């Protein structure tokens, strides 16, 4: 039963107030893209045992999408941040790296 801090409302939201949306920072491929790129965009998901950047919507709160860095093995949440970005905030990446030096970083 996760709790995640909604970066817009500032509340610790219960999992039941949230809706998970899978991997974050997907790059959309539209008309003109290769079959491979399009398949990757729609179906290939990072499914790491460890640090995962993912999307959540504060569905029964403010209704906004945000991103979270979460560990799929321990469920630790390293941080949440607004969705309007192409990659995770640098300080968050640094914080995770500090905690888990063996982590390969965000790719």
């Amino acid at each position, binding site marked *: *039963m996760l709790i995640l801090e909604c970066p817009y409302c500032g509340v610790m939201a219960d999992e039941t107030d949230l809706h998970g949306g899978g991997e974050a920072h997907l790059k959309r491929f539209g008309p003109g893209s290769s079959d491979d790129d399009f398949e990757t965009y729609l179906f290939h998901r990072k*499914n790491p045992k460890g640090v995962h950047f993912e999307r959540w919507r504060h569905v029964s709160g403010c209704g906004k999408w945000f991103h979270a860095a979460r560990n*799929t093995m321990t469920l630790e949440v390293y941080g949440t941040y607004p969705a309007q970005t192409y990659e995770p905030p640098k300080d968050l990446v640094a914080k995770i790296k500090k905690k888990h030096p063996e982590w390969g970083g965000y790719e």
Partner: protein
Amino acid sequence: MRRYSAFAIAREAARYHTGWERAWKSPKPKKKYDVVIVGAGGHGLATAYYLGKNFGITNVAIIEKGWLGGGNTGRNTTIIRSNYLQDPSAAIYEKARSLYETMSQDLNYNVMFSPRGVMMLAQTEHEVRGYERTAHANALQGVKTEFISPQRVKELVPIMNINGPRYPVLGALWQERAGTARHDAVAWGYARACSDMGMDIIQKCEVTGVRQANGVVTGVDTTHGQIDCDKLAMVVAGNAGHLADMAGFRLPMESVALQALVSEPIKPCIDVVVMANTVHGYMSQSDKGELVIGGGTDGFNNYTQRGSFHHVEETVRALVETFPIISRLKMLRQWGGIVDVTGDRSPIIGKTPLGNCFINCGWGTGGFKSIPGSGWAMAETVAKGEPGSLAAEFGLNRFSEGRFIDESVAAGVAH
């Protein structure tokens, strides 16, 4: 292998059961095998069994990082059915179901296949039409199902409230020869048979790397050292993506937790398996008397084998509404299993970008019921190097072509 029978038990009873031999051996790995199978769950063991039985390939190792049958084979709600809508699904699940019919005799191990019947309730007009469609398709697919009336539902399950205030039961899709089996016994029975054919089941042995040369697999590195092989079959749940990573390819898949629970045991009260998709719950009663209940999957990637409680709540309230007498019964135990879900929620069986490396994964919530069919199809794929008819449509390439096998269409999801 000494055969199991009532006579064997009587003979052993005379000497206080001290004479039973091991059900499977515990060998050290050899240097090389014709086929190495990663994963000694139901699917991996069934793959090995049919490699031996159907193709005479017995120089096989089955490598397991934990204990055999310890993944989803031993954590599911044991339902076996084949009332699927799409042709390839109906084919492989019906193959599996028919193999379950004779599995106890084939393996000389009682897996307690109980064809008690599975019903899927239709509780909206939309669901009625969806299941009528499935019944039509099944008739042409050679899967025996029928759409039954609410009265027949009530006769089969007297404890059901078919006139609930919220969703009256409008009928059900009924598969009479579907049912349940003892999940652990399926793994143990296959393991015993594989061991008897001379295959090596190596438990507590984790794969740490996949060896390859010139785009072709040559073996695996494990916590027990290097093991060479001509062919490699990856047959794991929850770890398929991890293994694929080692072999250098990606899978269109995510891993999530699926919830299940059982009640305390009571005397028999429900003789069939009931699935209610509109309200998200399904229930049967084990031979021990426990109500075995399945819930939903969590909406986030998770490898912890723990899940969230709210799915349990959702499922239980649906079942209390459907079966009012269970309200004062109690939940004994809840658990989570990690299931791999693909882009169209159907499995992947077939070749991989790495030569002589084959994969069988992504069974989602349908893994247990498919075990023998999956093993049969995978064995054929590994033995021949090409998928046979059962596996052909489950290949990885379907995602780039947009050729999905989508079973959710019949699930009565309101649009």
